């Protein structure tokens, strides 16, 4: 075969390989036009920047029907992901659902639009205990959406068999307990959350920024570290459910999921979770309006819609999130509504704290401390 011919065939092959791309491009564009044409050329769309898996699919359907618009979602799995994207200048979201400290940041950056409460009659459904937070006095910008607790999830049978306590942070920090479950424990891969647990165990506030107290907490962590299997932010859900882990420091939603998975697959054990008596972190997520959003009208509609007990309860029933909505309680399945790890009683509620943001110097020195901890 001549060289000339072979060159031509190669070029031909490249072009043909690109053919599907072209076809996809054209058909794809056509389809997009079509789908956008229905809700009026992309105008009647509410852009929600939300946590992963933080709204029930049926709620989306109901809302789209109710507002005769389309709900388009983008997701983040960490407040910091969302903040980083917004800090670089990303715009176009109508609604965001940040946790308290991230909301604090957004408010102080001037990134949010004040709410028009006359459009939110259902605001009265919210339990006053969750209003008027330090982050947003007077709730000028935010309406509570749902909350989670950072707590302990465990394999009930194993922990009972080993006679370990589950109502104290000691179980993840004290070698005398840990040596019985070495390599079967994970803690959150989060500077703030793990430090918060350690600080609470030492009797300080989760928002303590005293360098000396931080050092004590770091010592505590370093001492316990050899007994932990890993720092884990998500994989503990499955590992608990299949029995590889016996104890995990994590979020109440995730423990709910792990318990459900273990039950569904008929494992010979149950996953329990409880809040340590020393107190823990409460993360309250709120709906806020981004200043640059195009559709504050739809955003208000959405907030008011989500404030209806029936709609708000759908999320709790799906993922076991805490619900600040009093009207929702009647729609929440009793086994969830009666779970004290999800709905803490007033006495426990008093011992929960919300994380506040650190200033930039504190953030930098905590980061160094964390790096040191990991490298030790």
């Amino acid at each position: 075969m001549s060289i000339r011919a072979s060159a031509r065939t190669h070029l031909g092959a490249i072009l043909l390989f690109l053919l599907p791309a072209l076809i996809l491009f054209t058909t794809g564009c056509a389809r997009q036009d079509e789908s956008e044409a229905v809700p009026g050329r992309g105008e009647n769309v509410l852009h929600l920047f939300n946590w992963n898996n933080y709204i029930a699919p049926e709620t989306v359907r109901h809302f789209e029907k109710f507002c005769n618009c389309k709900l388009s979602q983008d997701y983040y799995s960490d407040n910091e992901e969302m903040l980083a994207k917004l800090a670089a200048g990303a715009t176009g979201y109508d609604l965001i659902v940040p946790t308290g400290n991230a909301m604090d940041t957004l408010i102080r950056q001037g990134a949010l639009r004040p709410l028009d409460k006359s459009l939110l009659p259902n605001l009265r459904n919210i339990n006053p205990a969750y209003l008027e937070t330090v982050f947003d006095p007077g709730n000028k910008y935010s309406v509570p959406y749902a909350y989670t607790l950072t707590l302990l999830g465990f394999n009930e049978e194993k922990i009972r068999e080993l006679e370990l306590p589950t109502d104290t942070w000691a179980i993840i920090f004290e070698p005398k307990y840990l040596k019985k479950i070495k390599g079967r424990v994970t803690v959150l891969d989060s500077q703030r959350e793990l430090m918060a647990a350690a600080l609470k165990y030492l009797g300080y506030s989760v928002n303590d920024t005293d360098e000396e107290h931080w050092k004590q907490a770091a010592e505590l962590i370093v001492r316990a570290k050899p007994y932990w299997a890993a720092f884990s932010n998500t994989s503990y859900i499955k590992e608990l459910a299949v029995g590889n882990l016996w104890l995990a420091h994590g979020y109440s939603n995730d423990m709910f999921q792990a318990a459900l998975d273990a039950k569904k697959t008929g494992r010979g054990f149950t996953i329990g979770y409880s809040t340590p008596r020393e107190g823990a972190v409460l993360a309250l997520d709120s709906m806020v309006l981004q200043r640059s959003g195009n559709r504050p009208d739809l955003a208000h509609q959405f907030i008011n819609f989500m404030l209806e007990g029936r709609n708000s309860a759908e999320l709790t029933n799906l993922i076991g999130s805490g619900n600040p909505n009093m009207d929702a309680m009647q729609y929440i399945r009793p086994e969830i509504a009666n779970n004290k790890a999800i709905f803490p009683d007033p006495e426990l509620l008093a011992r929960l704290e919300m994380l506040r943001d650190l200033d930039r110097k504190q953030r930098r020195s905590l980061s160094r401390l964390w790096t040191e901890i990991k490298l030790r």
Partner: protein
Amino acid sequence: MTKKAEQGRTEGRAEERAEVGIKERTARQRMAKFFVAGPPLVFLTVFFVVPSLIMIATSFRFPGEFGGLAPIAAPVVSAHVSQGLEYGFTLEAYQFFFSDILYAKIFLKSFAVAAATTLICLVMAYPLALLISRSKKHLRNLMVLLVVLPFASNFLIRIYAWMIILGPESGLSYFINAVLGALGITPITLLFSPFAVLVGMVYVHLPFMVLPLYTNLEKHDPALLDAAQDLGATRWQRFWRVTWPLSLPGVFSGAALVFIPVLGMFAVPDILGGTGDILIGNLIKDQFLGTRDWPFGSVLAIMLTLAVLAIAGLAAWFARSAVGQRAT
């Protein structure tokens, strides 16, 4: 005649001809150079150099009180903003980097992991690439495809699959611990360990070694090996004296494509690593998606890039001197 000398001769000939000075032809060649080098140069200047300059500038600024960056100009003090905020440019982030041996330690550790990954990849990829290059033509494409195909599935999914394989309840764990038990060694956990990190790193980067190696080995002239055989070279000698030196450019590009990305990788240590497995990639990611310290994140990245370029320069220098030695 050696390769080098041959190349030198052709270059010499080219120069001669340029001197002869067929003007039209040199003009044409310059046009060609312009067309070939121009587009990538322009594209990368716009979409890489400019953003990089932004990042370099970032490393000389203060982090914003709430994330992002502090303003360059003095902030307008409003009700929202407390007084006494920093603004402008600073060397603070660099000072912070050099103030603690901690960061040097992480660099060393990361380079060690990257080197180990590269070495293992090379050992695994070389026979595979060699076999592919010596297979029949229609088989060759299929075999290359088989190397790349797993990578059309999602990266994280593949890592999670390793979680299953290395997990304490997996067959592999049982087998290894049964063997260790028989030898009287205490059982080990595979998952959440430096070993798991290494496995994950090798798995993710293996094709980056196979492909450059294969493209290099494929062009080798089998006549060279036949000639060596005729001269009485053993199998080992044929490999070590002919194939290996000729494949060095492939080895180096493969090594670069494995070594460098490993340094920036954070997902593998995050998912498969234990409590001590922090690498430079994790640290950099944390500055952007955790600590909200962009200037320090930029400093770390600049240091990493400089270190990588230094190593690449050293490697190139070594390679050149090694090739030079062989030629003389």
